[in-house]
């Protein structure tokens, strides 16, 4: 299979996955008990049957569920119209967009830090195999795996706020709310420390493990032997020959981990009352705000699917072996 066919296949698979997500979203919304019209206007508002019927027609609820309502909904979602939140009475897409930036900052910081430290520590562990560094790294990743994210967050929250005086949650201190960003930047950074630390510890273990086994595999390759035989120093071998090749699995892992990253954000934002998509998702869940829940799910799922596809495409350029699969 050449690269073009491979890319087309990936594209088709992503498209099918998006359709499945949309289908699940639509279906779950339909099977919910209760009347959507009632849900929008509120339970205790009195309206005549005629108005109800008019609203029904306006929402397209008088048409058959499939295909009319489905295609209609699909069109609405495609145009970015995700309905109105029941609890906030604002368009869902507007709410989602207002939280997106905060989450991207948090996830991005956590990912970057864990990749940097994970790669360095994994490299050391693999290079110094069976030493204290290696065993320590393995033990760390094992324990990091077994700890629930939210509990790690709770512990760091309790420890950080009691002993280090770090803020317990939110994005800025209440006094600084509403001020322009550049003025409160130090305060924002202060609030980011604990959530970022939680996410970093959470992701670090896995990157470290993958890097370790990847470097072990690369070090047993013939070209490493050749490089050593040429008389290159340890660091030259490691830097020029081993690291580049060993980094490849990390790229795949970043993509595969995106779903995992999203769940990390939901837990960490909940624990630290961080005003992002994850916290929004949890609040919508508790308030049973279905349009908001659906919109958030759609946004999260579609972005993960697209990011996965992009990573697959990127991978074909990074690893020349993928050209002909």
């Amino acid at each position: 299979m050449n690269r073009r066919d491979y890319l087309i296949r990936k594209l088709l698979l992503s498209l099918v996955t998006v359709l499945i997500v949309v289908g699940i979203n639509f279906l779950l919304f339909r099977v919910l008990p209760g009347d959507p019209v009632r849900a929008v206007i509120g339970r205790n508002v009195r309206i005549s049957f005629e108005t109800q019927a008019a609203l029904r027609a306006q929402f397209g609820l008088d048409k058959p569920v499939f295909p009319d309502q489905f295609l209609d909904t699909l069109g609405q979602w495609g145009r970015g119209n995700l309905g109105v939140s029941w609890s906030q009475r604002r368009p869902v897409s507007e709410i989602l967009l207002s939280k997106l930036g905060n989450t991207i900052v948090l996830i991005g910081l956590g990912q970057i830090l864990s990749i940097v430290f994970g790669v360095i520590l994994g490299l050391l562990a693999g290079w110094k195999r069976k030493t204290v560094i290696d065993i320590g790294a393995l033990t760390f990743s094992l324990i990091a795996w077994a700890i629930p994210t939210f509990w790690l967050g709770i512990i760091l929250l309790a420890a950080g706020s009691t002993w280090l005086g770090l803020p317990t949650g939110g994005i800025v201190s209440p006094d600084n709310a509403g001020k322009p960003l550049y003025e409160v930047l130090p305060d924002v950074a202060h609030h980011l420390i604990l959530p970022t630390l939680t996410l970093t510890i959470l992701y670090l273990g896995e990157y470290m493990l993958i890097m370790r086994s990847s470097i072990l595999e690369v070090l047993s390759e013939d070209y490493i032997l050749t490089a050593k035989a040429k008389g290159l120093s340890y660091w030259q071998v490691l830097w020029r020959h081993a690291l580049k090749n060993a980094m490849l699995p990390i790229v795949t892992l970043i993509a595969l981990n995106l779903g995992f990253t999203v769940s990390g954000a939901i837990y960490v934002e909940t624990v630290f009352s961080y005003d992002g998509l994850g916290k929004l998702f949890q609040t919508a869940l508790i308030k049973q705000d279905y349009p908001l829940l659906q919109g958030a799910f759609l946004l999260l799922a579609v972005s993960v699917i697209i990011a996965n596809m992009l990573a697959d495409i990127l991978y074909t350029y990074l690893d020349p072996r993928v050209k002909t699969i």
Partner: protein
Amino acid sequence: MSERWFLFKRNLLNFWKTFRRNRMGLLGAFLVVTALFLAIFAPIFTPYQPTDTIRDENGRGLTFAPPSIHGPLGTDDAGHDVWTQLIYGARISLTVGFMAGFIAMFVGSLLGILAGYFGGWIENLLMRTTDVLLVIPDLPLMLILVATLRQLNLHVSPIFILIMVIGLLYWTSTARLVRSQVLTIKERQFVARARAIGAGHIHIIRRHVIPQIMPLIVANSVLILSTAILIESGLAFLGLGDPTQPSWGTMLNFAFDRNAITNGAWWFYLPPGLAIVWVSLGCVLLGNVLEEMLNPRLTAHHLEGEQKIHPLQTPLNLPKPEKP
């Protein structure tokens, strides 16, 4: 019958001989067995019921009492004994873990065997389904599934919904693993011979395929168990547990919502988390050791020449499904 029993006993004994020399495996087994023991015999280890309110001499409820004042682990915001909550909560957490793990293992093994053995459209369907499930973020999917199912008046307990949703979403890794093993077993000579003397598909699957992959399934299901327990704790923490039957995750949800952290009630929020780590760590250690001992891929066969995968290259085979 007696001969098979004898063989089984001998295999078990051999297994134990190797196993008991493995310290990691023993530690894992210890962690899991103690948790199971406490959960099963919970009433023996505590004089209270989880719903009992602990009172002081004046008859007032003891809320947020530290361990120095009451019991081994103090009381929570409602005056319930935390130790009692913990060991009764173990019942819920472990039940969900075991049942969901069992469903995932059963569905995964069944689909894996069918796909690996028969190939064709079943295999295609399985592989595409796992491709799709792999890229949909699990937690949001589970959250909206559980939230919707709870809204429908199904007259089932929230615990049952959790079991079904976790079990029916986490079979993919088992299915892929089993499929790849069945693919190699299918090509072995003894299967070809059995087929040559006229054995049917069902006979081959029952007598040749299943016994070969069973050890692998057992090892894998221990790993799935830890994932299921972690996921349950996460969903319960986000408020999807059953408040009338609190699991460890529900306890943490209560502790967080009712300001145990700002009250400094560490005895309320530390033990449930430690219990989760205790069990999931135990399962991962046990599962890894079992897999190392039982996985045919990792042990060299004397006829297969040089071994390709060095066991130290994959010392920690952590289950891939996302963790909470």
